[in-house]
């Protein structure tokens, strides 16, 4: 629950008369009624006449050589229409988002548990599954490389070698030494994005030899290009149509599903549908990088940071995917939102036979936040300072240098954020006479004993970049059309639940004064808008919508302005009415349109960035956002059970575009962070995923989720961003786990250097 929507906000929206609209209002999502009523169409709900069902055969081993694949028995089963393997890929056999290193189907090697080997289309899902199981694969099982530290010396798992990227960051004087030195070793586990809807899709062959893929893609154009290359088709013969997205926390869709679907549809000439089981979903999609971090912090006697030395090792799994980007973020933000004159970081991303890692909200930045905040707590303890105080003495501000040599030009109100959470009131202790009604760690079953519960308060400061880094061409295109007093937005930016379509409607309402704004569903016939990730769509797609809307506005008003001999700037549009500054002119949008349609298309492309050079230096980021969180936890020090009581959040948002949506994004992010801090870890001993189900992989429920209190939203506009707004979703995820760990440290006095926090790490052993 959140406290941002105070009675004031409600009164304001009521006083405004009718429904909220425009920038700064809490316009509700247009999809909300359909989603709550269960009529919103997700990919798993799609149907086509005469469709076939697909099943994918996946490797049971993390590392094996494929000696032989025999599909004859499966292909001969009644009801089976096609079986495809690596031999049936007409185009590129390898693909990948950044590096083409991942086979569509494993050919002679399998490199992770769950890697696709073959796919079947049959007339019933169970027949397809049975046929997939009947495919004979002869393996020569190999020793898996599962310890990333051993990947350097291990046999190469891939022709490209095991080292995906190494960034040595050198900033300042390597010989600088502080008066106080603390060291720490930190580990972060494998978080799964665990979207609420598992992967699903429908592929429909086209009469012209092309194919349409109906999938919950978050980056339709990139998915289309990969698919077309693998199918050996021109890009215009493959169309990706984005269906309802049932939750996305990264690159949602697993190409191991889209590509077999398309191949099977092309092969059979029939529509083919696939719905992943939860187990397949856990095996197939990308996870957060498990990370090992070794840190040494130097500070002077007053607690000012002198030098930070770090070694960061990301476990990328078998394929490169987005690991290079994650590593860049980890290395660049290794010291956190603090001023440090000397920083030396070695960062590596290596291949292993563990489950694949990739883009999951806040990748790289999250893992280092856990480590540098652990170090700040250690320094505070060593110097006898309050944890909030030592952070306050080192906070970054606008104009300071990042360890990459980039100057922070955007607002960086880190000190203000920290002060806001530090000074906020603490949540009350449980009260009431009946102790059995207190919600204690361990839950409602009553195992908690008030006498064994300690409360702790901890702090964390987090930072993350917005938009793709290191020279990524971040561009989006949008079209706005006005007709009959209504407006339509056409943009391939995918609504993943993050609220882009709501934002697009608000922008058009604001610029054109038209109430009724619709956003069309996305597909690849529209111009590219790029992936729904790193807060891109708030910035680039929102910016493109704004520009297109302004162009339409000019087209609409120019003839009027010319007629009345005044400039366009003197006319305003509100509630569908056009008025001049002096009130002489007053007409309606519909009247001015006179049955005409106005169209405009615009692009938004922020300033370019550099790749980090071979000493980790460069202006790699377009924008940065910051967050401060104060966590309050209760720990049962005998059982090691932790309950997060409250998280107080202060965030740098640039400008609030939709207060309710913003609060929801922060709550969602914080909850994901709490999940990582306390329970989410997809275990894969020796490379084999254990218990890939929602019973085995615990996600926070309503009882686990803390009260989220948004104590301050700093609205200092980022002048280069459209509306001055910053993306808000990622930075709470990045910061929350470190805050929880810090609070558990305060409650127990234990070091807490590993996430998720296991019960044994939160137990205070009795003094004997």
């Amino acid at each position: 629950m959140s406290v941002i929507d105070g009675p004031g906000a409600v009164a304001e929206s009521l006083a405004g008369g009718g429904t909220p609209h425009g920038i700064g209002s809490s316009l509700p999502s247009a999809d909300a009624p359909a989603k709550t009523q269960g009529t919103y169409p997700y990919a798993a709900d799609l149907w086509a006449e005469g469709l076939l069902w697909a099943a994918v055969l996946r490797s049971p081993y993390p590392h094996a050589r494929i000696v032989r694949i025999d599909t004859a028995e499966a292909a001969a089963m009644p009801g089976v229409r096609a079986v495809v393997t690596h031999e049936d890929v007409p185009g590129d056999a390898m693909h990948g988002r950044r590096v083409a290193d991942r086979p569509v189907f494993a050919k002679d090697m399998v490199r992770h548990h769950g890697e696709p080997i073959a796919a079947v289309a049959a007339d019933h899902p169970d027949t397809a599954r049975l046929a997939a199981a009947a495919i004979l694969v002869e393996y020569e099982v190999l020793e898996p490389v599962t310890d990333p530290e051993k990947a350097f010396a291990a046999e190469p798992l891939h022709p490209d070698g095991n080292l995906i990227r190494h960034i040595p960051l050198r900033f300042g004087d390597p010989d600088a030494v502080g008066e106080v030195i603390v060291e720490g070793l930190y580990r972060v586990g494998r978080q799964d994005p665990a979207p609420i809807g598992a992967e699903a899709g429908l592929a429909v062959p086209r009469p012209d030899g092309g194919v349409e893929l109906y999938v919950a893609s978050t980056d339709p154009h990139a998915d289309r290009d990969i698919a077309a290359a693998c199918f050996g088709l021109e890009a215009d013969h493959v169309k990706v149509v984005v269906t309802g997205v049932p939750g996305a926390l990264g690159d949602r869709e697993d190409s191991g599903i889209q590509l077999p679907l398309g191949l099977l549809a092309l092969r059979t000439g029939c529509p083919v549908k696939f719905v992943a089981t939860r187990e397949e979903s856990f095996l197939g999609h990308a996870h957060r990088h498990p990370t090992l971090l070794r840190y040494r912090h130097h500070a002077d006697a007053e607690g000012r940071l002198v030098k930070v030395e770090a070694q960061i090792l990301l476990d990328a799994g078998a394929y490169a995917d987005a690991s290079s980007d994650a590593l860049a973020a980890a290395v660049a933000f290794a010291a956190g939102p603090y001023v440090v004159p000397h920083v030396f970081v070695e960062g590596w991303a290596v291949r292993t036979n563990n489950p694949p890692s990739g883009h999951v909200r806040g990748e790289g930045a999250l893992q280092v936040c856990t480590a540098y905040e652990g170090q700040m707590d250690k320094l505070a303890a060593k110097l006898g300072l309050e944890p909030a105080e030592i952070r306050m003495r080192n906070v970054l501000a606008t104009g300071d240098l990042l360890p990459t040599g980039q100057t922070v030009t955007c607002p960086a109100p880190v000190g203000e954020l920290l002060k806001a959470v530090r000074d906020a009131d603490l949540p009350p202790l449980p009260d009431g006479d009946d102790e059995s009604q207190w919600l204690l760690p361990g839950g409602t079953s009553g195992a908690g004993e008030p006498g064994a519960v300690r409360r702790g308060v901890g702090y964390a400061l987090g930072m993350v970049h917005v938009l793709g880094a290191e020279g990524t061409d971040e561009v989006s295109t949008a079209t706005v059309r006005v007709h009959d007093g209504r407006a339509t937005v056409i943009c391939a930016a995918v609504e993943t639940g993050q609220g882009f379509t709501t934002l697009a409607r608000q922008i058009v309402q604001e610029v054109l004064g038209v109430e009724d704004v619709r956003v069309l569903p996305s597909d690849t016939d529209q111009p590219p808008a790029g992936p729904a990730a790193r807060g891109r769509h708030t910035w680039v797609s929102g910016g493109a919508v704004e520009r297109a809307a302004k162009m339409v506005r000019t087209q609409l008003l120019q003839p009027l302005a010319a007629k009345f001999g005044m400039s366009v700037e003197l006319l305003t549009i509100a509630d569908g009415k056009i008025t001049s500054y002096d009130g002489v002119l007053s007409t309606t949008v519909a009247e001015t349109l006179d049955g005409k349609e106005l169209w405009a298309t615009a692009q938004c492309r922020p300033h370019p960035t550099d790749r980090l050079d071979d000493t980790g230096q460069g202006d790699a980021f377009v924008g940065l956002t910051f967050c401060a969180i104060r966590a309050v936890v209760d720990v049962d020090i005998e059982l090691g059970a932790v309950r997060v009581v409250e998280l107080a959040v202060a965030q740098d948002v640039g400008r609030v575009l939709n207060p309710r949506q913003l609060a929801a994004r922060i709550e969602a992010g914080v909850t994901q962070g709490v999940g990582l801090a306390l329970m989410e870890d997809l275990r894969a001993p020796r490379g084999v995923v254990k218990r890939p189900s929602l019973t085995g992989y615990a996600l926070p429920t309503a009882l686990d989720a803390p009260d989220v209190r948004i104590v301050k939203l700093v609205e200092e506009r980022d002048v280069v961003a459209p509306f001055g707004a910053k993306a808000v979703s990622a930075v709470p995820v990045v910061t929350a786990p470190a805050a929880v760990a810090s609070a558990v440290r305060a409650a127990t006095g234990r070091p807490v250097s590993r996430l998720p926090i296991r019960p044994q790490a939160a137990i205070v052993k009795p003094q004997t």
Partner: protein
Amino acid sequence: MSTYAQQTAENVTLPTSLDEAVAALAAMPSAVPVAGGTDLMVSVNAGLLRPAALVGLGRIAEIRGWQYADGAALLGAGLTHARMGRPDFAALIPALAAAARSAGPPQIRNAGTLGGNIVSAAPTGDALPVLAALEASVILAGPEADREIPVSHLLTGMDPLRPGELLAFVRIPLLHAPQTFLKATGRTGPGRAVASVALVVDPARRQVRCAVGAVAQVPLRPLEAEQWVAGLIDWDGERTLAPEACTAFGEYVAAACIPDQPGVELPPAAVQLRRTVAALSRRALGRALA
């Protein structure tokens, strides 16, 4: 040839009485009885289990309630966790109510049944340690005759369900004395038990009975620890214990349930589990004798 019709063929019977259900099972021995389906249907949906036929037990009214019989409660196997969690039931068998309330999120508790918990016999089944501590017995309805056996015989496989038999009722002695159920999970929200402890005080027999769930395939009864602690209690007096006795009891129970391996040091996970069981047992005894 299409396999569609073949794959979708389902055979579901929905009897409205126990006799009908037993007859349905006898008529089709390969049929699987299903009550709440919270375990079974997950496996079916995941394609792990493909029952030839199902006998749905949800319409048998006689096993969805409870009655009193000779100082005991006769609970229908179809009682849901949600029903057992309500205050009227909690007044009757508090430990079972506490276990039922912690057995999962509301959706699971609304569907899952007592009988299902026993028959699926998962090590983490929350009702099982309570039934073991209460020394409950189960009444099995069969094609020839009904029979009654201790729940532990069923759980350990000493006396398993015979073909065509259905779990109909659970007989639980009413003790009119404190009883507790405590469960440790890794989280605040509902989750599977890491360890659970059920502890009941039986003044009539001057016993304390304790069962530890989730640490082994079946609930474990630390009999020596039970006898030791029962000997410390002044049954005719205050029935209280010193905190040191509760602590010692916890250690005793934990060491009995997670025994030392001769010549081998306990792995850290086992040490942690032992600590958890000790804390739960100590708390359970402390609360029962408070």
